[in-house]
């Protein structure tokens, strides 16, 4: 390609401004390339920075002992367990709601209603998470107390629009010929959805849910007012305040103790490793589903 462009183009005389076109083209490609490099570079810098500063404090004790508020021997097992429970509860609330919303908009709603719903979801997705946190605080915490339930509800509100929107996109990839085939066999709409649409798109639906899980695991603002004042011990009852990794990172980094600073980085590493692992699984699944759906087009 390069060679051809450099050689004298025998037809070049017929194209006006050929030189200018080539320069503009090269400039566009160059800036796009630069943009992409910055994105990749940022990820690498963040991950490398967290690994470099956190890896030193990662050891079995750190992962299996609850926080020690004074000494330097403790770990973050209470936060790991708490975040696992919070994310599981949030997923239990958000995945059904998100997927049903996606199914409703893509399979049942009229075109106008569907586009309205998509807009609402986009707005919900854009609501700053600190506002989500205050909302849940007003609804579930005021007059009661902070709790795992309240924290999970905050995370679920973050997850729903993510799951619903990605679900809609996957469902749009399901060829309409499959729905028609099913309807033409006498299947009702819900049966078509259950037997044909969901099985065909399940990988993509799971991918969307996984990415939302990865996102929720690191969300801090929704927990700030709802699930942040917790004891330094492993807690599994969601009606109490569940310790969690994001708030722990914040607290450790506020501590005057340099050991705690190092532990904050280590906790960040645990979180980022989880997020990367979940995204990787999601990506594998999504690649497989997309390939299959593409073959069907």
């Amino acid at each position: 390609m390069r060679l051809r462009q450099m050689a004298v183009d025998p037809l070049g005389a017929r194209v006006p401004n050929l030189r200018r076109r080539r320069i503009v083209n090269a400039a566009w490609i160059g800036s796009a390339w630069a943009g992409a490099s910055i994105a990749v570079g940022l990820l690498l810098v963040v991950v490398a920075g967290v690994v470099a500063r956190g890896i030193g404090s990662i050891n079995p004790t750190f992962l299996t002992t609850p926080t020690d508020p004074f000494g330097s021997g403790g770990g973050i097992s209470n936060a790991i367990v708490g975040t696992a429970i919070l994310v599981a509860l949030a997923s239990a609330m958000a995945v059904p709601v998100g997927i049903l919303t996606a199914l409703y908009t893509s399979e049942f709603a009229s075109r106008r209603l569907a586009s309205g719903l998509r807009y609402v979801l986009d707005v919900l997705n854009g609501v700053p998470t600190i506002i989500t946190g205050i909302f849940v605080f007003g609804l579930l915490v005021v007059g009661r107390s902070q709790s795992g339930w309240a924290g999970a509800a905050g995370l679920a509100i973050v997850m729903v629009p993510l799951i619903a929107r990605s679900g809609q996109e996957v469902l749009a990839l399901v060829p309409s010929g499959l729905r028609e085939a099913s309807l033409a066999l006498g299947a009702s709409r819900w049966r078509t959805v259950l037997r044909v649409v969901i099985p065909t798109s399940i990988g993509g639906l799971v991918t969307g849910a996984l990415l939302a899980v990865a996102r929720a695991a690191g969300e801090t603002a929704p927990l700030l007012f709802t699930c942040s004042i917790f004891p330094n011990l492993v807690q599994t009852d969601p009606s109490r305040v569940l310790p969690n990794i994001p708030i722990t990172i914040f607290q450790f980094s506020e501590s005057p103790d340099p050991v705690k600073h190092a532990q904050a980085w280590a906790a960040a590493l645990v979180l980022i490793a989880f997020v990367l692992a979940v995204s990787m699984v999601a990506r594998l699944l999504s690649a497989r589903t997309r390939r299959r759906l593409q073959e069907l087009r």
Partner: protein
Amino acid sequence: MTIDRKELDAAGRVRHETPPGPRTEVPAVDRVGVEHGASGSRVHLEDVKAYYGTKRVLHGITLSLEPGVVTGIIGPSGCGKSTMVRCINRMHEEVPGGRCEGRILLDEIDLNGPEVDVVGVRRAVGMVFQKPNPFPTMSILGNVLAGLRFVGVPRERRIERAEAALTDAGLWDEVKDRLSDPGVSLSGGQQQRLCIARALAVEPDVLLMDEPCSALDPAATMRIEELITQLKRRVTIALVTHNMQQAARIADVTAFMLAGELIEVGSTDRMFTDPQDERTEQYVTGRFG
């Protein structure tokens, strides 16, 4: 027909109490190819108009599909062939804004009647689409069983019905050793025959085929054409095709449509050798379309 008729009625649908009213003039159909003992149903469209939203695309079609006969439907693309056949199994109403007026009788049942359930219609009137569309998550066998499951055939009867359907679709020998392979692992032509088997499994009285060969190579097309010729004794067939040679080869009766109107219908021989309407003649001689 007898079994399905009972099921139609058992599902709470009633037949017409009053005989069909006066019919509008039906274009002369030469009665050809009607075989005695053909077991499909007669479909009669009467002044059928179809709309997408407010846009009318069928302007009053009157046409009969006779048992034992392959009715070819030809016409330039966009003239309303697909819309017309999709009115017969009420798939047209699945399109947002899709609406259909006029009467469509399956033998003496008005398919658009208020008591008629759409599931019963789709069961009595099967459909094969342009692009083979086996369910990708289902095996070969699973695809054929799907319709039976949808319409609630008891489990123990499904397998034998599926085998019969695959046999009827000329696919059994090719797939009997790999029934649990995915349906989409078959070749294009085999996939289309799988879709035919899937439609046949629920024992329809009418089979609508909307350009079933247009995505297939010539050899696969020939298999399907042979199949259609064999199946017409059991099920009334409407074959939409943009391929006039195909209509000439296998349709007994051919209907020519243009811009939402039925221009002419008659025995295929006559339609191709001695069309009455000038536009038909222009179309079949390739002078437009």
